[in-house]
């Protein structure tokens, strides 16, 4: 998902650069205010961890492998802004030392993977966690947040790439991005879930004592409105992710409108008939057509969401009463 140089429209690059810089400054201030002089060691070490973790490849199929992105994982362990700062550090090192992701696209990449990946991810995670409660809540919420943030990031990426073009380009790019990232998001959700489950089974106090590992000291009076904000942001995030999947289908609308327009006649001049007839008007590349991609994208979105729910429920069974006992029993037997 690293956008390289020269692909983005310069105006988009500038705009996302300003947004990214503002987000990063706010994140740094917020993290430093809570961690004080511990910022460097904790943020530096977590950045190094995410960097190293991204090198571990998971087998997906023959010759294909995926890896963790980690935005939601850090947010669950350390809080949303700490997650964003960690992702920023990883992106900067990747850009300067490895040429991975463009210098002028750094802002866009940070908006997609840091701000959406961690801050919006946390906003999806926190309400679900509170709603379900307990260790099950942590695990299920983390997986759902991981799944939706990858989709949202793909949607944002498509919007940035197609900002200079027309809305139909947006839908074309979005369809492909969302289809590919449905697979990536599934992997991200499952890896995040398994790592969180591992932490919950070995050192649960790191996550459970406080959603932000002591980073967010409860300030009296600031509790309820923040929760509302988180709930609203989370709901918005999920709604947007749904839109990411369904909008390729909805893009039929403009075509339909044009069709109606031509029927009525007010768009008659919009389709200039070329003087020379196209050599093969009905010729199409033997690639899957855009309509197929759109349908596949929507199906992938629905199936993926269901799979994430099912898998997260299955993994979280360990933390229900019966699951706990059976796990203990198997541990004793081993």
């Amino acid at each position, binding site marked *: 998902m690293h*956008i*390289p140089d020269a692909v983005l429209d310069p105006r988009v690059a500038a705009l996302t650069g300003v947004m990214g810089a503002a987000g990063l400054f706010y994140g740094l201030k917020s993290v430093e205010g809570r961690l004080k002089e511990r910022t460097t060691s904790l943020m530096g070490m977590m950045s190094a961890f995410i960097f190293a973790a991204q090198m571990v490849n998971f087998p997906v199929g023959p010759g294909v492998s995926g890896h963790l992105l980690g935005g939601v994982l850090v947010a669950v362990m350390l809080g949303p802004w700490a997650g964003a700062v960690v992702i920023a550090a990883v992106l900067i090192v990747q850009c*300067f030392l490895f040429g991975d992701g463009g210098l002028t696209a750094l802002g866009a990449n940070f908006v997609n993977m840091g701000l959406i990946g961690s801050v919006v991810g946390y906003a999806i995670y926190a309400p679900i966690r509170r709603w379900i409660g307990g260790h099950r809540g942590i695990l299920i919420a983390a997986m759902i947040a991981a799944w939706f943030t990858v989709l949202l990031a793909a949607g944002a990426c498509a919007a940035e790439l197609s900002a200079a073009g027309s809305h139909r380009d947006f839908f074309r790019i979005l369809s492909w991005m969302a289809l590919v990232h449905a697979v990536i998001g599934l992997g991200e959700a499952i890896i995040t879930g398994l790592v969180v489950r591992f932490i919950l089974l*070995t050192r649960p106090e790191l996550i459970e004592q406080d959603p932000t590992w002591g980073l967010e000291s409860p300030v009296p009076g600031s509790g309820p409105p923040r929760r509302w904000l988180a709930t609203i942001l989370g709901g918005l995030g999920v709604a947007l992710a749904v839109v990411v999947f369904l909008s390729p289908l909805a893009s039929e609308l403009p075509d339909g409108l044009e069709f109606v327009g031509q029927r009525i006649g007010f768009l008659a001049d919009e389709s200039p008939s070329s003087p020379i007839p196209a050599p093969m008007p009905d010729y199409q590349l033997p690639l899957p057509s855009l309509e197929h991609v759109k349908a596949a994208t929507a199906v992938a979105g629905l199936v993926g969401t269901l799979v994430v729910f099912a898998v997260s429920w299955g993994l979280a069974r360990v933390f229900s009463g019966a699951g706990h006992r059976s796990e203990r029993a198997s541990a004793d037997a081993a």
Partner: protein
Amino acid sequence: MHRLDARYKLLFTLAFVIAVVATPIGQWRVLGSLGLLLALLVGISGASVRSLVLRWAGFALVIGFLAVMVAPGLPARASHGLVTVILSIVVKNSLAFLMMLVLATVSSWLDLLQAMRRLGVPRVLVATLQFMERYIHVLGEELARMSQARRARSFQGGSILSWRLLTGMLGMLLLRSFERAERVHSAMLARGWDGTIHNLD
């Protein structure tokens, strides 16, 4: 060139990349002269052309795919044609990418970080980046040791099992990173750490 003040190198790279990215599509003369400049820099820097080309080839496929995906929607397509647009994007990206690689070859990460700090990047971020680079290698080695230990037990599992083993490895690495951060932080406090890195300059 290696001894040049890293601030100038950083600013020059930034200016070069922005110039490349901002060059309008189809301006081959501008891109050509920027390319000549880059070739000159590669020559002076003594960077291995072979390794540069190899690194570039690794990325060429990705950028080609992206260019093909983005190009049809750009307004410039109408005036320049699809092929010119795609070629422009690929050439512009290659120039920027190679410039970043040249920067990475002629300056050490520490010098770059110091230059960033002097150019106004927040101290916390610079210190974090410095710390991070140090521990990337440590954690990478730790990861290699863990996977070697796993292989030494000659473990060959199915796909689901290997997912559980790999996430277990990541979880273990995460816990060890936390503990290492604690230990390192205590050691730093013992040596008078107050939140800022002091350099001898």
